[in-house]
């Protein structure tokens, strides 16, 4: 018999047909009878006092139904940090002070979008501009303008990680290297912008359709800020047009549409424009990174010291987690006998920086991997070799932080080394750079203070054998609906088409914390597997009683056949047994419940993915233009569930992370984003993609369902570093300031040529 009947076989996503026929209904497509359209007025100042808001003219305009401002709210500061009240610092509709350009100050509901837009122009806001501060290293100075009363010198949060005796270890180092890096911000650019349709009924119930990564978080946060009972709020999110970390915090579309709907008892729809999406939603956390590293002359790592200042923007958002994780992943995926990290998140008058795919780790990996190649070069050691010498291994404990169970890093390095050798001698101006990485499979963080299990699932088996699977997780395109249905079908011993999935509705689905931090395969997957196993047990009990085998035999279900494991030919059809079992249970359907919360798994995550990526790039010496040629990734995500899905995640991550590496940036002038559109903000396009190859290294992760772990977010970690190293090996220049634009490369090349000439003259 095959090891697996369902998993490890490439399948179409179960929602694929809806997507290729245009039948998938996103929040953007939701329309209701008597629905109104909302628009949000936003601050033009990076820092100002609101003296007065006069909405009277706007309210009188034809078609305008309601205008709300901060005065119409309960005045609560909200945030995802419900265990740490001082970090809940964002009102969403500002009452007294605005702290970034784009911060909402009022919202309008009208019969159509034109009327709402026109009404915004008639709202008169009197501001008193305040001095702003835009750079974290400026903002920590004593005389800098202070954004929040509670945060002296604008320090929002600090994080410290330390193990081993760092100072002592540096004394033993043969070689010490210090570098400063600047890693840039990045916009998520979900193709579906943030949007919501809120419908408040006279019974006191609020229903919100929204594009989100976590309907549970949005439900609870909305209830909190609106003063409603948690379960009088229903959040529905069937399809989400991309998330990438931008859609699990409460946003202005959700809050303002709800507030307006509560005032009017009518449905209100708000869709952010692309410009609002750039200016006034959150973004990847930019950082200043200092690294000091000590090694032995054979390349063995001894000590690392990292200091980070992040440009936090105006509010905490998810930035505190990004601050911790960048420190944790700075030490990844290597064994550091001693390590010290100090991170400071600093408030500035800019849009809040927060979570984005990789959650602080791509920033860390870029800096770490760039520096490792510089060290290897100085010591005359091959880049593969220095990584092999120091890599993590199964059973390694990151002191006080994490315990690594499965780890296929060594094999990943072997495969990448083979590929590089096969490439042979490269044409001029080309280089191959590598980067090694790891990532978590869901966070062990409960800053949200949920009293529920992190993930829960329910399985119900109906009379025709069709299985209703209820999950709380959210598919935003990463394919978790399919992955989780496959896990259910595999465990239960049925086929994928036997599963009917129910998701994206807080009234129907059990709680799951949502799709962030690469949680779903491992955490929701474990809950699904447990629920399916519980349902299976009930069927098997019935079948065993019917079959009456010798007690030494046990039973299982595979491909709809319930049988004695040792005698697979002896058994019954799954469908027949289900029918009889339901009759035998007084007509009750078979129900299995499952849940998962990590216990005693360290500080960060129950399991880690690993990988090594090689990027081959060509640099035009006359223009500095970088062309990506190949990108090969050896990847350990444990047991693969859907190979087609993993490949898609990998290629998609390359596009996003390469963009981070060399094309995407959010330049600002005094807090104003200069390129808030898809022409000037350069995401990767089809023609810029390199050839991509994935080498799956299968390991078995004891904590994951069927041995699986994360396979989506971590893939964003290596590309910028590998790309930078490719440029380094092609040209001899190392750029420590993301993105690696052609201008920066050209400047560095000219500088290098000038130095060479001077040296020659001397």
């Amino acid at each position, binding site marked *: 018999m095959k090891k697996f009947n369902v998993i490890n076989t490439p399948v*179409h996503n179960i929602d694929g047909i809806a997507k*290729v026929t245009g039948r998938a209904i996103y929040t953007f497509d939701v329309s209701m009878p008597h629905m109104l359209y909302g628009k949000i007025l936003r601050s033009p100042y990076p820092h100002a006092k609101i003296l007065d808001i006069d909405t009277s003219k706007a309210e009188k305009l034809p078609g305008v139904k309601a205008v709300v401002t901060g005065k119409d709210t309960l005045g609560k500061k909200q945030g995802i940090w419900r265990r740490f009240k001082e970090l809940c610092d964002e009102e969403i509709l500002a009452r007294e002070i605005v702290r970034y350009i784009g911060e909402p100050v009022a919202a309008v509901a009208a019969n159509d979008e034109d009327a709402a837009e026109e009404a915004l122009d008639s709202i008169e806001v009197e501001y008193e501009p305040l001095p702003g501060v835009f750079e974290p290293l400026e903002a920590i100075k004593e005389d800098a303008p202070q954004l929040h009363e509670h945060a002296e010198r604008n320090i929002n949060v600090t994080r410290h990680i330390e193990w081993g005796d760092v100072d002592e270890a540096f004394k033993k180092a043969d070689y010490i290297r210090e570098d400063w890096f600047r890693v840039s911000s990045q916009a998520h650019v979900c193709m579906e*912008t943030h949007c919501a349709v809120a419908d408040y009924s006279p019974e006191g119930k609020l229903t919100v359709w929204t594009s989100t990564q976590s309907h549970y978080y949005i439900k609870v946060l909305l209830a909190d800020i609106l003063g409603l009972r948690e379960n009088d709020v229903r959040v529905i999110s069937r399809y989400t047009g991309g998330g990438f970390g931008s859609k699990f915090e409460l946003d202005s579309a959700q809050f303002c549409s709800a507030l307006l709907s509560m005032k009017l008892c009518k449905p209100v729809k708000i869709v952010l424009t*692309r410009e609002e999406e750039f200016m006034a939603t959150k973004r990847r956390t930019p950082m200043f990174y200092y690294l000091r590293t000590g090694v032995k002359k054979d390349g063995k790592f001894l000590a690392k010291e990292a200091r980070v200042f992040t440009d936090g923007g105006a509010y905490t958002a998810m930035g505190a987690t990004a601050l911790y994780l960048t420190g944790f992943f700075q030490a990844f995926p290597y064994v550091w006998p001693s390590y010290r990290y100090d991170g400071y998140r600093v408030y500035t008058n800019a849009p809040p920086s927060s979570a984005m795919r990789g959650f602080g780790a791509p920033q860390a990996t870029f800096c770490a991997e760039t520096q490792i190649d510089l060290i290897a070069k100085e010591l005359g050691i091959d880049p593969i070799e220095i990584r092999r010498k120091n890599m993590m291994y199964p059973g390694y404990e990151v002191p006080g932080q994490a315990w690594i169970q499965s780890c296929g890093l060594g094999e990943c390095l072997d495969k990448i080394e083979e590929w590089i050798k096969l490439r042979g001698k490269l044409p001029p101006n080309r280089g191959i750079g590598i980067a090694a990485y790891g990532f978590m499979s869901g966070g062990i963080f409960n800053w949200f203070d949920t009293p529920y299990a992190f993930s829960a699932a329910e399985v119900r088996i109906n009379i025709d054998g069709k299985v209703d699977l209820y999950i709380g997780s959210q598919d935003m395109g990463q394919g978790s609906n399919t992955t989780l249905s496959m896990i259910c079908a595999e465990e239960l011993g049925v086929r994928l088409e036997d599963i009917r999935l129910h998701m994206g509705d807080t009234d129907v689905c059990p709680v799951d914390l949502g799709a962030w931090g690469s949680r779903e395969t491992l955490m929701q997957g474990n809950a699904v597997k447990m629920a399916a196993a519980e349902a299976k047990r009930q069927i098997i009990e019935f079948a065993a009683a019917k079959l009456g085998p010798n007690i030494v035999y046990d039973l299982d279900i595979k491909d709809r056949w319930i049988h004695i494991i040792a005698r697979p030919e002896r058994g019954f059809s799954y469908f027949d047994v289900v029918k009889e079992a339901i009759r035998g249970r007084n007509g009750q359907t078979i129900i299995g419940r499952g849940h998962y919360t990590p216990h005693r798994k360290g500080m960060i995550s129950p399991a880690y993915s690993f990988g090594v990526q090689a990027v081959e790039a060509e640099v035009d010496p006359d223009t500095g233009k970088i062309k990506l040629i190949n990108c090969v990734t050896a990847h350990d995500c444990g047991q693969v569930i859907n190979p087609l*899905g993993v490949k898609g995640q990998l290629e998609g991550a390359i*596009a996003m992370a390469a963009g981070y590496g060399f094309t995407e940036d959010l330049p600002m002038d005094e807090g104003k984003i200069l390129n808030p559109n898809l022409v000037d903000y350069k995401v990767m396009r089809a023609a810029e993609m390199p*050839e991509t190859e994935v080498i799956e290294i299968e390991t078995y992760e004891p904590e994951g369902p069927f041995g699986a772990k994360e396979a989506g977010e971590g893939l964003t970690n290596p590309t910028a570093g590998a790309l930078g190293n490719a440029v380094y090996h092609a040209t001899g220049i190392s750029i420590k300031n993301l993105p690696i634009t052609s201008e920066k490369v050209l400047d560095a090349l000219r500088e290098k040529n000038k130095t060479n000439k001077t040296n020659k003259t001397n």
Partner: protein
Amino acid sequence: MEKQLLHMTVNGEEYEVYIKPKRLLVEVLRDELALTGTKRGCNTGACCACTVLLDGAVVKSCSVLAMQADGAEITTVEGLADGTKLNPLQRSFLDHGAYQCGFCTSGMLMSATALLNGNPNPTKEEIKESIHGNICRCTGYNSIIRAITSVAEGKYTEEK
């Protein structure tokens, strides 16, 4: 602004609607005809999520006034399948995992349709060029290129 009568054929169905002349084609398709398969990602012609065919030519429906389509034949993503029979591009997109969140998929399919209608044997460069304007933030494009290539190579034929 006085409303005007717009006459157009969409996916083989004839429609007559009264609209304000400033309405965009994407708005009329989505809001008046409830054909929400066509998406809108930017409204400035920079992402091509709103791509449709106008008399066979590929257009961004956010950059066309609906009145410019008066008397025209429009094809949207809803017009690709015949009942339960998906067309070759749709099946190939499924097999190659050429979509993730799906929000750009309609536009991608329409750009690819226009390419293959005019050039049944495109080179890889021509395929890349045909979707150059279409932004996909999820897939990294290569699966989409493979999906279109497979159809061009004749690996998918119309279902009978």
